[in-house]
């Protein structure tokens, strides 16, 4: 029994090392002596980076929790018209990458945007630009909140729907009003889910490059690019990335502390889903308008604007080459997600069954990839693959073949980088799936004489089917939207929808960027719809 457990351990160690390698290659350079540029950055810039980054993260965190949790609570506890639609409709904003959201909202609000143009042309009103200015920190917080709150929403909602019914119903029986139930019961019990969701949001904000660059806000990620490319100093860039990683690790530790040892897993199989109550009167109206305006702001409005731009430009953009773009994007996203789910399953299963610190240690390490900016991971991965290639080249020469870069020019490098970057997303989903079912079933199966591996395939995997599908879809959508890493590592003649969108946008051709944006959004939206279906069907 020990030995079979070892194969899980061994695989976990191998994967963890593979995933850590690129980060390590970067980290060794972190301790290089500081140079003149770093002194310059410390003197003039660092404070600004920290203040801006922390401001963005705090407010986005706050608002995503407010909106995400209240939407999750209202959707799971009450019934309003179009209830079934809102349940998944409110996840849809996740389909819009924040940078596309930023391009679109700026397009709507700026001087030649639809609002100001209509005011001018139809009503002859020229408004003060100040009120329509979105390219600043509050604007960025708005964008991040609108397109990232679904992370909090999904996780909290699935927790509330499936785990909290007895608590909430008891509170109701004891005569608590809905508001007090929310404050005294819902918030405390769903703390772990909320923290899990908001930490994803925070990491996304730290990693974002598209929105802050477009809006001209100086944060760590713009600083990394500025130091690396503007000053040609990769060492300072790495120091900045290191500082950022330090902050993120602090946050992850904090998350663990806040979550404490609480694991809200039920040891009986009789968990009843929460039954939503019908709402009446002004309450129904209030909740309905909250849902409607949230859906409008976070999805419908940007979607309609993009649709209009697509109509303006599709005849220029659509061609056979465009079909390739779609295929490329879907292909790398699918292969990447599949690999991530497999690796995540192995490490998560090992980590939950190992009693010692090792399992937990590996599980935390693999999550680190998500805290490193995509561009930095890309360089780490490139370094690793070039090193491997040098080895392969000697082999080739020894065999008398023409030396060539097999690995670093192939798409496997890009996919490997995706695994490093997004493993955390798949891992979190699967870990929380495991958390939810607890270990009683596994233990029962083991007591009955099944091996770890057999139990894994016969029992565990079946219990967390929903988490697996959910993790797959979340990663799939993330890869589809990914930008900096793909830009750096794409092979010759290989583009994705995201890189194409960015190219148009950075050339200030937002209208032309709309077609590829639209396809990203539609594919993601479809995936999210399936995610919803999967979660609905999951055994409760």
């Amino acid at each position: 029994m020990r030995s079979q457990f070892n194969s899980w351990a061994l695989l976990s160690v191998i994967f963890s090392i593979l995933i850590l390698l690129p980060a390590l290659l970067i980290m060794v350079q972190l301790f290089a002596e500081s140079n003149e540029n770093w002194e310059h950055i410390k003197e003039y810039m660092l404070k600004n980076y920290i203040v801006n980054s922390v401001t963005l993260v705090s407010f986005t965190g706050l608002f995503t929790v407010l909106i995400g949790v209240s939407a999750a609570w209202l959707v799971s506890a009450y019934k309003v018209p179009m209830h079934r639609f809102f349940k998944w409709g409110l996840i849809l904003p996740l389909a819009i990458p924040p940078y596309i959201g930023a391009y679109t909202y700026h397009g709507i609000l700026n001087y030649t945007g639809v609002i100001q143009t209509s005011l001018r042309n139809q009503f002859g009103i020229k408004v003060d630009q100040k009120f329509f200015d979105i390219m600043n920190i509050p604007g960025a917080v708005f964008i991040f909140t609108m397109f990232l709150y679904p992370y909090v929403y999904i996780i909290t909602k699935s927790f509330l729907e499936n785990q909290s019914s007895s608590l909430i119903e008891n509170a109701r029986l004891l005569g608590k009003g809905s508001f007090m139930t929310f404050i005294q019961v819902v918030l405390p019990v769903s703390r772990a889910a909320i923290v899990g969701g908001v930490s994803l949001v925070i990491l996304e904000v730290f990693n974002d490059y598209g929105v802050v660059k477009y809006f001209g806000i100086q944060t760590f990620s713009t600083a990394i690019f500025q130091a690396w490319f503007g000053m040609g100093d990769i060492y300072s860039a790495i120091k900045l990335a290191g500082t950022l990683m330090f902050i993120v690790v602090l946050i992850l530790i904090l998350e663990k502390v806040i979550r404490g040892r609480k694991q809200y897993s039920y040891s009986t199989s009789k968990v009843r889903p929460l039954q939503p109550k019908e709402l009446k009167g002004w309450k129904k109206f209030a909740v309905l308008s909250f849902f409607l305006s949230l859906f409008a702001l976070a999805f419908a409005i940007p979607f309609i604007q993009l649709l209009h731009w697509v109509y303006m430009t599709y005849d220029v953009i659509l061609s056979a080459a465009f079909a390739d773009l779609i295929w490329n994007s879907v292909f790398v996203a699918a292969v990447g997600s599949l690999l991530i789910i497999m690796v995540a399953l192995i490490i998560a299963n090992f980590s939950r069954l190992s009693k010692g610190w090792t399992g937990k240690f590996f599980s935390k390490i693999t999550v680190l990839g998500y805290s490193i900016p995509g561009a930095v991971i890309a360089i780490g991965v490139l370094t690793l693959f070039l090193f491997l290639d040098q080895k392969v080249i000697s082999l080739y020469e020894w065999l008398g073949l023409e030396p060539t870069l097999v690995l670093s020019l192939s798409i496997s490098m890009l996919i490997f980088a995706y695994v490093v970057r997004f493993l955390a997303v798949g891992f979190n989903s699967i870990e929380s799936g495991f958390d939810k079912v607890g270990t009683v079933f596994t233990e029962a199966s083991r007591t009955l004489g099944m091996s770890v591996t057999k139990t894994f395939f016969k029992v565990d995997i079946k219990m967390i089917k929903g988490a697996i599908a959910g993790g797959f879809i979340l990663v799939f959508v993330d890869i589809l939207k990914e930008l900096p890493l793909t830009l750096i590592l794409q092979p010759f003649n290989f583009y994705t929808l995201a890189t194409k969108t960015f190219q148009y946008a950075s050339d200030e051709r937002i209208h032309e960027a709309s077609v590829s944006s639209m396809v990203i959004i539609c594919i993601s939206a479809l995936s999210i719809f399936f995610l919803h279906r999967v979660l609905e069907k999951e055994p409760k």
Partner: protein
Amino acid sequence: MFKKNLFTVVTMVLLAALVLAGCGKSNEGASSKNNDTKKEEVNLYTSRHYEVDDKIFADFTKETGIKVNLIKGKEDELIERLTREGKATKGDLFFTSDAGRLHWAKDKDLLQSVESETLNKNIPDNLRDKDNQWFGLTKRARVIVYDQKKVDKSELSTYEALTEDKWKGKVLIRSSENIYNQSLVSSFISLNGKDEAKKWAEGIVKNMARDPQGGDKDQAKGIAAGEGDVAIMNSYYFGQMLNSEDPEEVKVAKQLSVFFPNQETTGTHINISGIGVTKHAKNKENAIKLMEYLSSPKVQEVFAEANYEYPVNKEVEPSELLKSWGPFKEQDLNLSELGENNADAVKIMNEVSWK
């Protein structure tokens, strides 16, 4: 037994996936490697991403049979990639839209000298590297645009004059992270020295109408919205706006005019798109063929017409639109200096809190 298989199964699947993924897209590479008749091709790293470029490359393939493979990315990332790939790179050419970055590539020993009479004839001295490691292919000017109603042309003179108190709260310009602004400040370091360059940057920050935000086109829109009176932007973005499919953008552009600053003094700042053969190019001959093709009058005309850029080839006239803005005096600067001064420019901009 099952348990032992797990290890094997997972490993096999992972490997298979990686191999499949690798093969899926590297078929072309593999076939050219094994065939005796090497396929004619040339590999290009480019930070330019215009349809017109793709069309030109397609024409080149049609005429010569040489296939053009592209990796598009941001210039800095491409440089980093070339550096890391070193000898083993597949890239034959590096094509980007900033002279500073071309100089960097040269500085990092990524490019090689090229002897070509055609290129020397087609491209003026100051628009190519003195060791012929890179060649300019198109030009753009960093001009001042202004509101015709609020500003009289006679009030405008130089970039320096925009730092006077008269323009307080009226100047629009994008962030210091933008390469065009970095190159602009670099040019001032060359022409006037570091101290003057810093004084200029300080003055611009003091006169900014708002915190820098958005792209070049957003500066023009800022004028139309009444946030400021003058903006510094690239000529070709202004050209794009005048010909935009969005009638509102056209309206904005029509409200504004182009002014070429420093005509009596150091000249208007220009930058180029340029190209160089990589140090370890495997298809050097094809690379040179492509460069010569790009500098030929026929192609220069296409560049000029489609993208509102100025041709470098003297035989070719700018498009009608650019001609309507009139001829102008350019900064007399070896464009390599933009690259040499870039790090200093960035520091200066940080020191004066240019966001």
